[in-house]
Each structure stands twice: as C-alpha cells, then as structure tokens.
C-alpha cells in the first residue's frame, strides 16, 4: 500500500445521501480476477449514456472537476454491496480522500485497507466544503494527515478531523496489514487451541 501523507488537488461535491457501491462501480465491471482497469468505470452509468457518450450534467465530466483528488459526499456514502471494486475504481480515478458526515461500514474498512482516507466532519462543515468544492475558483483542498487537517486554501478555511491512531499510522506508513497480524501468529494459534478445547463442536 502506498503511504498517504499530504495531498493537494481539486475537490468535487456529490451532495446526495446514500450513494451506494452499485452506483460507484456497476456490476458489469465486477467480473475481473484482478484489480485493473476500473478507473474509467467508476460511476459509469451516471457518467455515460446508453451510447457511451459522456453525460454533460455529471460533475466529473465537467472541466473543473475532471481530475479530482477529493470528493465531498453526502451521508452514508458507499452503502450496499461489499464490493471493494468501488474503492479500487475511485483510487484509480485519482481520488485520495473522501470527506463526508458518515460512511458505510464495509466501504469504510475497504478504503482503509487500500489507503483511501475517509474524513468525517460535522454537517455544517460539510455544507461549507460542498460550497467550496462547487466553485472552480475555490475548490482546491490540501490534506495534511500528520496534522489531521483539510485546508480549503483560497477560502482560507481549515478543518481538523479525528482519526484512530492505528489507522493513521497504517495509512502514513503504508503498512502490510497481513504481515503485521502474522507477527501475532503465536497468539492466534494459542487462542484457536483454547477455543477448540472449550467448544469442541466448532
């Protein structure tokens, strides 16, 4: 996993609730056996019409938002299916952080495992960021993960966010989670032995 430390770039706003993973990565693109080629597929059905022409009304098809690093999203972003393809697609599209009031559980974990930061802020703060993201003159944001801040540079607004220390370290160091856990292989084995002795039918 690539370390995530600082990011600067454009933001786009998607201020509707419950944007689900079927919308983020439609099922016709889940048939691979690798992670490749998903960047062009994210939001496919919203991005293209039936003749595969870009829909001009879709935000990421408009020039100021064609290459964004941040999405400012509505509540419960990433709900629905567990498909990690949604996260792979967003990252391959260049997105490094999602900012919203809440994220769905499985999706949030999937983001963490891939180095895509999810930042949770209060509704008022999200309303502010949504406004900046919607204005091409003010939509550049800067993330400083060490300082736990998002800065809307032109607007001059700084937002501090909370993050679990372990999550933060994993993102900043780009750790291999399995390698980390396998350092505890002994404890897992002991636990397993005890569990099977106590509950022999398992």
């Amino acid at each position: 996993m690539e370390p995530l430390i600082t990011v600067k770039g454009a933001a786009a706003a998607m201020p509707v609730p419950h944007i689900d993973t079927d919308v983020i990565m439609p099922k016709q693109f889940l048939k691979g056996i690798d992670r490749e080629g998903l960047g062009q597929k994210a939001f496919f059905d919203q991005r293209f019409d039936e003749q595969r022409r870009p829909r001009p009304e879709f935000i990421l098809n408009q020039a100021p938002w064609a290459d964004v690093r941040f999405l400012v999203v509505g509540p419960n972003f990433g709900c629905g299916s567990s498909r990690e393809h949604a996260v792979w697609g967003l990252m391959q599209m260049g997105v490094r952080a999602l900012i919203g009031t809440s994220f769905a559980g499985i999706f949030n974990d999937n983001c963490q495992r891939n180095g895509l930061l999810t930042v949770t802020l209060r509704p008022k703060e999200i309303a502010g960021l949504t406004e900046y993201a919607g204005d091409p003159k003010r939509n550049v944001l800067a993330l400083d993960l060490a300082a736990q801040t998002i800065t809307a540079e032109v607007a001059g607004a700084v937002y501090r966010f909370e993050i679990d220390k372990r999550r933060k370290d994993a993102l900043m160091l780009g750790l291999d989670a399995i390698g980390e856990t396998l350092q505890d292989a002994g404890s897992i084995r002991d636990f397993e032995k005890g569990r099977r002795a106590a509950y022999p039918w398992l």
Partner: protein
Amino acid sequence: MASTPRTLYDKLVDANTVKRLEGGEQILLYIDRTVLNEYTSPQAFSGLREAGRKVWRPEANLCVVDHVNPTAPQRTTHIDDGEAAAQVAYFGRNAKDFGLEIFDTLDPRQGIEHVVMTELGLVLPGMVVAAGDSHTTTYGALGALGFGIGTSDIEHYLATQTLVYKRLKTMRVTVSGNLGAGMTAKDIVMALIAKIGADGAVGYAIEFAGSAISDLGVAGRMTICNMAVECGARGAIVAPDQKVYDYLKGTERAPKGALWDQALAYWQTLKSDEGAVFDQEVALDANAIQPQVTWGTSPDQAVEIGASVPDPTTETDPVRRAGMERALAYMGLQPGTRMEEIRIDHAFIGSCTNARIDDLRDAASIVRGRRVATGVRAIIVPGSTAVRRAAEAEGLDKVFLEAGFEWRQSGCSMCLAMNDDVLEPGERCASSTNRNFEGRQGTGARTHLMSPAMVAAAAISGHLADVRKFDRS
C-alpha cells in the same frame, strides 16, 4: 463483585477476541468460518499467491459459485460471458490449490451462499462468521455474529483466521405485538429501515427482540437479519431459542450425539444479560405494520401499499430532498401516484433475503389457480438447489409453472444481475430482493422491493397490489 451485564453482541465479540491492538480502539477478532464466492474472492487468492501465503485453516472455508452462474431451467455450466467464465474457473483452481471445499454450479448442494451455509448447518449459535458479502448478517438469525467484509479483508482472514476489528455500538430493536394476516418478516424489516433510514444503524450491531420476532420462524428471522445491513447495521442478532435448535437438528453439518448435547447447553446461555444497556433502543409495533413497498432507489424510500408516491417538496432537509428528486426521476414516477397504480413488466422471486422454502410456499398460496398478467415476465429463482428440490417435492414448481412463472435453477440471478438475468433500461420489476439501487437489476432498470407474496400479487395483477385483497389456497 458482580460483573457488568453484557449484551449478546458483546459476549460474542469478547469470546472471539484474540487480543487488543495497541494504539487505538481495534482488536484482533478470531473468525470461526467463512463462505467465499467467485466474484469478491479472486484478488484475495491472487494476493496470497503473490506473497506465497497459505490459507490458515482450510476446513473453515466453503466456496460456492452463485453470483455469475446462469439460472436457466436446464442446469448448465456454460457461461457466454468470457470474463464470468474465467472467474468461475479461477475460483475452482483456487479451491483446489488451497485445499478448500467447493460447490460448483452442478453440485446438488449449490445455491446462494447464505442459504447454503444455513441449510447445511455450517453456521451455529455463538460463531463469528465474516464473509465477502454484505448480507452475511443473515447468520444472526441463528445466534451467530455475521458480517460482510471486502476483498482485502478476505485475504487477511484467509491468511490469519482473524480480522482487525472495531467494536460496534449496540442497538436493540424490539418488535412487540403481532403481525397482521398477510404480513411477513420482510414487512417488519422494511418498516424498520423506512423508520430509521438507510443509515439509521451505521456503526451499530442490532439485536432483534420482542414477541413478533419470537413468533417468526428461523427463515423469517433470516430475512430480517439479512436486510438489517440496508439500514447500515454491521451485525444483526436474534438470541437463539428452541426454533433455532430444531432447525439445526436436522442439518447435515450440525454437531451430533454427545457433541450436540454439549453445544446445546452452551447455546442456551447465549442471550443478553438482564439489565444489559444498549447504546440505542428502537421500538416497533407489529400490529401497526402494513405491507411495505419501495418507491425510490434507496431501501428506506418505502411506503405502505395503500399510500402514494411522496412529494419531495414536503421534505425540508435539502440533501434528502435532492435524493428524493433524483430517485423519482430515475424511477419515472410522479408524486401523488397511488402505489397500487404502478404497472410492472417483471416479477422476481429470489435472493438470499426471500427465496427459502417458506417464501416459496407463501408466494404459491397467492399464485395457486391464478395466471400471471399479460405482458408480465415472472420468474422464480429458488435460494438453493436444495430449496428447489424441496419445492418440487411439494409440487410448488407446478403451481408456478401453471400460472405462467418461469421455474429456474438457483443463483443470485436478478438480485444483482451479474449473470444473464438482466433487465432492460426503463423496465420495472416487483422484486423480493433487498436493494432497489440505481442499475441494480440492469442499467436504467427500476426495482420495487416487497415480500415474496406481494411480488406474487403484483405478478397476477400486472401492477403493485395489496396481498391482503387475495384469497389464499
């Protein structure tokens, strides 16, 4: 000193905690078992291969082909779509190379993963099961903690038998009273989702309790725990009772003999302690629940069948209003239209939510002696090959076929339309599934969620219909 009363969820998590991890709120959680499917697992196996890692405990895994296989009435392994065929082939190779049990398309035990796991007795009370599918919450109906994970976590689980886990908050949903005639578990859970919202239980594990839950059979409880993920719950449990023990007793893989007695003694202890405090309490009155049906593109956009399509201008929250407007445009509906006037092109009874034998019996009681309306394509996809056999033994296949339904083989099918069961843009479907998301059943396709009996009533009527207006036989 007496210990603090604990919820059942906390007991299950405590019992499977290997250790607390430093520097945060996370723990290392031991996972007792999983089920794998062909579409969320390939990259996990590739990860193991690249790192030269083995599967920690091969016997704790079952592989089931269910998402991409065809469900044509005549069983076939042929898949036109080359990519889907490659997924199934790679799945088979992974099972073989890593030594895991697999049910492929032709296996008489094949079916939708969650239906297969439960009907075989592979999920037992007290277990912690994580799997690469969000509807793993289904297993809570048996008193197990089940939750969905992504592909990276599948790989982590396969290599270590554990997950890095953060404890959830707890919510108790008490459903008191009695369900009215014609109402089902699906109506309870849809009413809950409409009440608390599609994010109402984000960050929570739900325990379902109350007389209306005890009255349900195990299959109904599975419907409820299954769909609890649609309000964001990452775990949904019902304390096990005699109905659960009776259900498990007849299954192939449940413990037998002395082990059964020992297990049963333990299972009987699995309940929240008296006085255990939940972070949130929600109450529902079963007597007040009416047949539910969705009008929008999020599972919480549901109303009673007798109601009309709601008007976004009455919604004061701007984000919610934007969501409603978008949903109505996608669904091609006008505010004020009576739900019962909405005509359908398709009727689908299937999925891990509602395609067990109980569901098929319920739907058949509406269908018997009637005909599918002209212009409606109606299909039944049993939850598993075993369910299909059981239904045929009772003659349910004939009931459906005589009425004009297609009687198909098992798989996920039109629940997510990854195989060739796909709707065309603009087509409208009454569906016993769990998600009415944009594009879920096909790009541009429109889904209305409801109970299987309500789907049957819609198929016969040609439009959404109130199941209570039908005599049953």
